[in-house]
């Protein structure tokens, strides 16, 4: 009996010594991120930050990307003390802020005289009632990817940075031939109709979806002409857009900027071997060329963190120019805008070398895919449900849009 007691005591003491030793090492920052092992920009950021901050170690906590909201919210609710959480989707930050997980940043910003000019006002998406809760470090807007080899083979001019949707549709039909699709649409709502927000007036949470009809009609015209793989097939096969494009039988693909680093990697790994480029997405007649929409990715400080100052040091670095350069070096688009950053993006290894691709790096306007609001996530569920009915043509475009209007009106009350 005594022996066991002594043993237990010894173990307890060892444990307390061990935890003390851990507490001493205050220079480790734990950062919760998704796909931490395989995302090139996270590795580049870690390397650059550790190099410029001797003695600090960055430790990522890896969460699978599709489980990110579930897992992180559970961790935060359970009182997890990891220092920094990456904010994957805009609406999550609102929920986290409401639950008190996010550290308010205004005092840090004032104390350090932080320069926010490079965000071009985008940081406002992470503010609630004038208080900043996160800083953006990645901004992915949508561009048009195209397969240069297919255009060369067909003897057709490459797409340009100034095309209307009609010109784009004609080009897609022109590029369509046996075994080659002129363009490719992923199944998402955003891939088909989110273009509506490029005009800087419309949003997807305003409750009026009549403008989406234009894009649904455009899509159905392309599908009927056989210029893109039918929705039905893409959905049922679970076809990933990267597989579709890398297969080499798709001439164009409107997709988010994040796909640039995927493509760079794919060429490097040899999983695909054709020349590709990017141009700005097409625009409506009355919308300026180079307008697009996109999403922000940010980082916030966990209110329960025990190293808040260091965490601030990290996220302010990450979102600022230095972090942006590290991010850009991997072909990922940082939120911070400056000449140096644009240069770094264009010179990222594997980025297309033509002028049009470089010019496409600077959009004229970037709308927010779905702005954060109290109802964003509910609205987005409704829109996605109705979207599937339009895409499978169980509802006509008019019926579908009427249902969207009706159901969202109910949510907005």
């Amino acid at each position, binding site marked *: 009996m005594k022996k066991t007691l002594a043993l237990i005591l010894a173990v307890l003491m060892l444990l307390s010594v061990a935890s003390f030793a851990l507490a001493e090492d205050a220079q480790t920052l734990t950062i919760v991120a*998704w*796909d931490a*092992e*395989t*995302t090139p920009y996270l590795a580049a950021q870690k390397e650059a930050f550790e190099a410029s901050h001797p003695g600090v170690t960055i430790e990522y*906590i*890896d*969460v*699978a*990307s*599709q*489980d990110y909201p*579930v*897992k992180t919210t*559970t*961790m935060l*609710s*359970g*009182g*997890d003390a990891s220092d920094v959480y990456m904010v994957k989707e805009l609406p999550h930050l609102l929920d986290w802020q409401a639950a008190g997980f996010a550290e308010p940043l205004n005092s840090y910003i004032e104390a350090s005289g932080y320069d926010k000019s490079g965000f071009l006002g985008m940081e406002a998406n992470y503010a609630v009632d004038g208080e900043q809760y996160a800083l953006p470090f990645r901004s992915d807007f949508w561009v048009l990817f195209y397969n240069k080899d297919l255009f060369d083979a067909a003897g057709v001019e490459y797409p340009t940075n100034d095309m209307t949707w009609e010109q784009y549709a004609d080009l897609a039909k022109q590029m369509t031939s046996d075994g080659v699709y002129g363009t490719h649409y992923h199944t998402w709502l955003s891939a088909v109709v989110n273009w509506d927000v490029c005009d800087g007036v419309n949003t997807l949470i305003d409750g009026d979806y009549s403008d989406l009809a234009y894009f649904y009609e455009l899509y159905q015209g392309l599908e009927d002409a056989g210029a893109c793989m039918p929705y039905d*097939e893409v959905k049922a*096969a*679970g*076809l*990933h857009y*990267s*597989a579709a494009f*890398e*297969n080499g039988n798709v001439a164009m693909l409107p997709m988010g900027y*994040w*796909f640039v*680093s*995927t493509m760079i990697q794919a060429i490097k790994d040899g*999983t*695909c071997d054709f020349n590709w480029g990017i141009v700005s997405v097409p625009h409506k007649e009355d919308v300026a060329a180079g307008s697009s929409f996109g999403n922000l990715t940010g980082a916030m400080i966990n209110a329960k963190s025990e190293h808040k100052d260091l965490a601030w040091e990290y996220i302010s670095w990450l979102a600022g120019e230095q972090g942006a350069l590290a991010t850009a070096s991997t072909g990922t688009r940082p939120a911070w805008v400056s000449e140096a950053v644009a240069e770094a993006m264009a010179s990222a290894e594997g980025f297309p070398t033509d002028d049009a691709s470089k010019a496409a790096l600077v959009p004229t306007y970037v709308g927010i895919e779905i702005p954060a609001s109290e109802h964003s996530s509910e609205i987005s569920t409704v829109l996605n449900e109705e979207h599937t009915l339009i895409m499978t043509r169980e509802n006509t475009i008019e019926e579908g849009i009427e249902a969207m209007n009706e159901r969202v009106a109910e949510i907005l009350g």
Partner: protein
Amino acid sequence: MTQITATPANGVRPSHPALAIVGKTLLYIVLVAIALVTLIPFVWMISASLKLDREVFSYPIRWVPEVFHWENYSLIWSKVPLLTYFKNTAFIAIVVTFIQTLTSSFAAYAFAKLRFRGRNVLFICYVATIAVPWQTYMLPQFILMRSMGLYDTLWAIVVLQSFSAFGVFLMRQFYQGIPTELCEAARIDGLSEYGIWARIMLPLSKAAIATLVIFTFVGTWNDYMGPMIYLTRDVNKTVQVGLRRFIQENSSDYHLIMAVSVCSLLPVSIVFLSLQKYFIQGIATTGLKG
């Protein structure tokens, strides 16, 4: 005491031999047909595991890969620490199966053969909790586990799975099928309740225990949500969670997922095959002879 002779469970001899042959042939045809349908996804799985990622969903379906990419099976071990995942999963599955089988057959005996106050209410409680989706009580459970220091340890999954109501329910139903007279007789012979459980109930419920072992093992082995929420560091992850590392935000390696799935099938198949014999004995009632 009940006298039971050892004849096969289908100890009835068919009256018309010719009819029996026709019947048997028909039975085989049906069984083979179902077996083929059942196997299709597995054939697809194996074929996909030997392809390149972009070939997996190419259409129309190509059952035999153009080129056999055997290297997928070595890639999965080097791209992620799969061996660690397998070890963790095996540890959890074995410990859970052991605790679950032991404690639930114990508790089931009380529910099936003993009488005490609150028996029905308690039992309904057990069954009712099965009906509550885990998603709704996951958060309180997580907070509880964290406060006990179990978060990000394999023990979190052990305590989560070991005391599930399922095992108690299953064993209780089997015990109910065992004649109560047997217990009464044993009591008269002077056996304690523990003795009855160990010497009568356990030997009689081999098939049931085999069932529970299989289900618990398979269920724990394939569990995804629990480990996903509770296990965070790579050294603690299980196969099902590790699998998701091949599905990333902007790309997915379905060929590798299929390769891992095929490997992950092996241990469970072995457990199932090795416990098969308990379903074939035919006469579960051996040992009942007065």
